[in-house]
């Protein structure tokens, strides 16, 4: 694949934009970043790639994303109310496939959560399948591979 500085810049811009929305709880705008068929996936088993036939930590289609956001926003969830701020750092962005219909990219993420005054850290590899449209990229799939997906996690009341 030829180096494509312009495409890489666009992908980095999109990843930064999405991360900023999530850290600042711009959830409604985040929902608009998705295609109707898009899937937000947080696998429980990093060896599996057949996500539909595997138990995941999260496997959200459009309905589940909308419900997840509603749960975080409607004030009924005691854990969502208690969650502090998150700060995530996205880096090491690499474009893996640069198709006309789909761009696949991967990056590293370190998400820090302040939870009851304590810092909790989530390192992860994040894989994006981005659909180029007239309005910029739309998310066709986002897979968040937590480094400790296999271990005993703390509960999560935010979006990776």
């Amino acid at each position, binding site marked *: 694949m030829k180096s494509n500085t312009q495409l890489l810049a666009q992908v980095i811009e999109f990843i930064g934009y999405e991360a900023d929305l999530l850290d600042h709880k711009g959830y409604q705008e985040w929902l608009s970043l998705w295609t109707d068929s898009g899937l937000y996936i947080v696998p429980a088993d990093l060896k599996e790639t057949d996500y539909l036939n595997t*138990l995941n*930590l999260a496997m959200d289609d459009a309905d589940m994303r909308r419900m997840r956001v509603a749960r975080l926003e409607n004030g009924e969830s005691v*854990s969502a109310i208690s969650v502090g701020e998150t700060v995530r750092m996205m880096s090491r962005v690499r474009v893996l496939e640069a198709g006309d219909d789909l761009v696949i990219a991967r990056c590293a993420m370190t998400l820090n959560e302040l939870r009851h005054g304590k810092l909790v850290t989530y390192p992860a590899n994040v894989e994006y399948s981005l659909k180029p449209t007239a309005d910029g990229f739309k998310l066709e799939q986002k897979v968040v591979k937590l480094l400790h997906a296999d271990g005993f996690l703390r509960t999560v009341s935010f979006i990776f």
Partner: protein
Amino acid sequence: MSELIEMQNISLKAAEMVEEGRVHKDLYSDPAIFEEELDKVFNNTWVFVGHASEVPEAGSFKTAYIGRQPVILSRDRKMNLHVLQNRCRHRGATVCEARKGKTKAFTCPYHGWGYGLDGSLRALPKPEEYDGVFDKNELPLESLRVETYQGMVFATFRDDIEPLEDFLGGAKKWIDLFMKQGGGYPVQVLGEHRFNFPGNWKIQLENTTDAYHFPIVHKSFVTSLDEATADIFDFLDGEGFVEDLGNGHSVMVMIPQLVDLEEDLDQPIPARFEQLAQALREEGKSEDEVKKLVRAAHGTGFNLNLFPNVSCSMAFFRVLRPVSVGETEIQHVALGGEGAPVAFNRKRMRLHEHFQGPMGFGTPDDGEAWERVQKGSMAGTDGWILVNRGMNNLHQSKDGNVAGAVCSETGMRGAYRQYKKMMAAGEEK
């Protein structure tokens, strides 16, 4: 002198902290009591270690814990199950670190001692230095007593306690009902969620027999459901009940119409299962099979709490492990049907993801409440936790057990009665 005796009798102190209807808050936070619990409860009774479907073939294994002790559940070439202490007989290293897998042998990484699936010591490097010192037969991985019921595998360090089926007693009927959710296929583990919370294990033990919290803590989950499903979960004023099954076990029936999944098969397909029904029809299933599978996909309408570490909770196993007095690890084990249609097992996994696990719509709110209980229990030098709800409204069940309303704390009282008995054992004299 009397002060000295009192200090040594920590377990009697713990037993005294359990009264009918209330338990002392120090049971959540006293490290000395926690140590006693490992010894007197977890090392002294039947503890759930896994489901047979997790070790389906000869050579399959999974690792687990009994209290703080690491064990391996393995299936040997003759298909017998073994639960082995995960400790090399030489210098004590664990011989298996994988969560699950398939192997021919467990080999210690330190000096290469190799053990068979049944724990027997097969080979070790340079054995001549042990000639006349010991025979290999004397040093297998130490094995525990293992018994199963309906594929649920339990182990104990005690050779002299009652058989598993006697221990389960009145719970067996409910395990039989629980296993109907394979929809005509054997129940199979599909995967698991793992999370921990900074709190005592008994807070989790109480929770699966606590219907009272559901509409409060899980309001955001109920809101996310369609109206018909939300109605099903509005069960506090319904006909449900909690029944004390003895030996610390209890059942909490929240949705009575979902007790027996093989009954009422002529019900119409609920809207949220219509897509599943269509997929099953497309797989060539008859309308009768479709209805049976759809009903099974709901899971059961009850939580069966088995003392001390597992609950058959509506559609999954909840397994707890005490890590320290203030830390507990929990597994939410997803279940489906072995050989069942792909669409059925997929739906079961999606339903599990919706509520369970660290990112479900239910668990994080439970975790928040439990964390608050642990934190709040530190307030004051003396204080009690109430488990007396519904004590004024008990009745006898059809099976002759004590039962209370669905949101009573009858199940917690049953569990604490067993706890008290075990913690007091050997201290009566």
